[in-house]
């Protein structure tokens, strides 16, 4: 009998044609919006996790100023940190703004100190050379692609940094995105000279943007972190903070989750409005079919039968809207990420994630919205006294 009621409900929905579609579209839009936002958010989280892992790595500690503020510099001695047991390698990123003159231009530019220890991080730091060769000794400089253009310099030319002459031995590959690893600066805008010479040009206490510490396998992260903190205290640096991969991922994830929850909440309002649409349709249906309800009761329908009939109707419309919204929402998310990836040529283009939980959740929730919206109209229909319903014109 339940199946028969179900069939009747389906038929009533079909019978209303356009109006049913409009109602379903209300739910569809809400579900599509929620699904699109959540699947994009999950895709973003996955992409960021893997990117962070790529850049930072599991066994890595970042030393930055508090709040990851790369503009605020910190005092540390990278050689001392490298000497801590359990540390396999450590590099500090130090840039200074210097007056630079080239054959075809001059200006204040950022100069990065190159440390052979950085070789391990070449790919991550986008230090790959596209023309010429890497730094091999004193008096040599690498230019970022934009810097080379600005100075009108090529491999073999000479540039003057703070009055000292350097020979251009290579141009850095014009890379995709400027990285976190470069301290927020694009490699295209840098000059790279050996660290000892940077120290000579800018004497005084060494202040760095950040440092990356890579641990040897099986090193105790907590113990190493503690030794680094000891060192920072010893040199009087109070403003530094340590972040490991898990911290970083957790922080980023929590920000994304927050934004995602906020957006999904807004999209949820659309779903709520869709539910109100269902309620409106169902109230109208009860009014229109009052006489029919009377007939059903005259031929033996109980209140529960009538209640179920109308609940199925609203629930089915919710479910239908949810299923279509799921498809369309994922389609929209897919298209949106494809466009974003293409426009920004983002490294490691990301795609939306449609998890099983999201699929089931969207279907269940849209059915629930429909059914809840139908409760009051269905209850009203069920409670109609048969004789009044039959008399209704």
């Amino acid at each position, binding site marked *: 009998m339940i199946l028969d009621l179900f069939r009747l409900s389906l038929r009533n929905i079909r019978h209303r044609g356009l109006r049913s579609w409009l109602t379903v579209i209300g739910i569809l839009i809400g579900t599509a919006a929620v699904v699109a936002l959540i699947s994009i958010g999950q895709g973003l989280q996955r992409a960021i996790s893997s990117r962070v892992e790529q850049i930072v790595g599991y066994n890595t500690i970042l030393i930055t100023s508090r709040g990851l503020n790369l503009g605020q510099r910190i005092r540390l001695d990278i050689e001392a940190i490298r000497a801590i047991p359990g540390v396999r390698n450590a590099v500090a990123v130090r840039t200074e703004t210097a007056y630079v003159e080239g054959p075809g231009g001059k200006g204040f530019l950022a100069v990065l100190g190159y440390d052979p220890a950085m070789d391990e991080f070449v790919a991550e730091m986008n230090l790959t050379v596209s023309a010429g060769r890497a730094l091999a000794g004193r008096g040599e400089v690498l230019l970022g692609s934009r810097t080379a253009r600005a100075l009108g310099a090529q491999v073999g030319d000479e540039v003057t940094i703070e009055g000292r002459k350097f020979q251009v031995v290579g141009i850095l590959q014009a890379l995709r995105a400027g990285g976190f690893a470069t301290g927020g600066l694009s490699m295209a805008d840098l000059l790279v000279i050996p660290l000892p010479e940077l120290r000579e040009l800018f004497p005084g206490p060494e202040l760095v943007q950040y440092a990356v510490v890579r641990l040897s396998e099986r090193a105790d992260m907590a113990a190493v972190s503690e030794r680094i903190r000891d060192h920072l205290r010893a040199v009087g640096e109070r403003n530094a903070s340590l972040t490991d991969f898990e911290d970083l991922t957790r922080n980023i994830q929590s920000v994304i989750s927050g934004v995602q929850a906020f957006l999904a909440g807004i999209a949820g309002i659309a779903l709520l409005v869709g539910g109100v649409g269902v309620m409106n349709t169902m109230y109208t249906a009860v009014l229109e079919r009052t006489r029919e309800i009377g007939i059903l009761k005259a*031929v033996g329908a109980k209140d529960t039968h009538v209640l179920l009939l109308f609940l199925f109707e609203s629930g089915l419309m919710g479910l239908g809207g949810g299923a279509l919204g799921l498809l369309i929402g994922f389609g929209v998310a897919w298209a949106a990420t494809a466009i974003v990836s293409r426009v920004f040529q983002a490294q490691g283009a990301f795609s939306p994630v449609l998890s099983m939980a999201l699929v089931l959740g969207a279907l269940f929730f849209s059915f629930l919205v429909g059914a809840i919206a139908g409760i009051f109209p269905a209850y009203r229909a069920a409670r109609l006294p048969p004789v009044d319903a039959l008399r209704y014109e």
Partner: protein
Amino acid sequence: MSTALVELQGVTKIYRLGEVEVPALREVDLRVEPGDFLALMGPSGSGKSTLLHILGLLDRPSAGKVLWEGEDVTRLNGGRLAELRGRRIGFVFQMFNLVPNLTALENVELPLVFLGVSLRERRKRAEEALVRLGLGERLHHRPSQLSGGQQQRVALARALITDPALLIADEPTGNLDTTTGREILTIFSALNKQGRTIVLATHDPEAAEVAKARIRLRDGRIMGGTP
């Protein structure tokens, strides 16, 4: 005295229209015996429809008792009444009251749906009922595609599909032309001859003539019958 099919004892029905109380029935006593064919007559507003609704368990009296086969059903809950209606009573209305978006066949099946009869069984019985009433060619038509007489026959098939103890008809010929009306009355008469108990309300003297007994109502009271 044997048990009546339905018995009304001192039934009063009062409708409330805002502040005003309108009595539709005043202390009506009535016995419907198995095999009866009663015609309720009287001007509009005399209480014919109200009486039918109470006999058919579609409405409850304000005072008095309704006995179905000896059992007091006045205080039964809505679900039990719905079940009794579904199993024991068939209704035919002046306006036919078919469900517009169901076919003739599906309309006739409807009472069996609520009794939980299987689809195959329902189909078979509904088809037979329609064929018997000469609608074998109209099984899959919707009410809007049928003439008034055909619609009333579909309604009749629906009323009879559960083999009810009591057939209740409210002005069944009221919306039909004379010829079609006569056809319907012939069917009623034949049904009664087969032993079906029928109560109908009508204005139409010809319809009343077909019945075995006539009861006149005026202002909610039974004025007398012609056996």
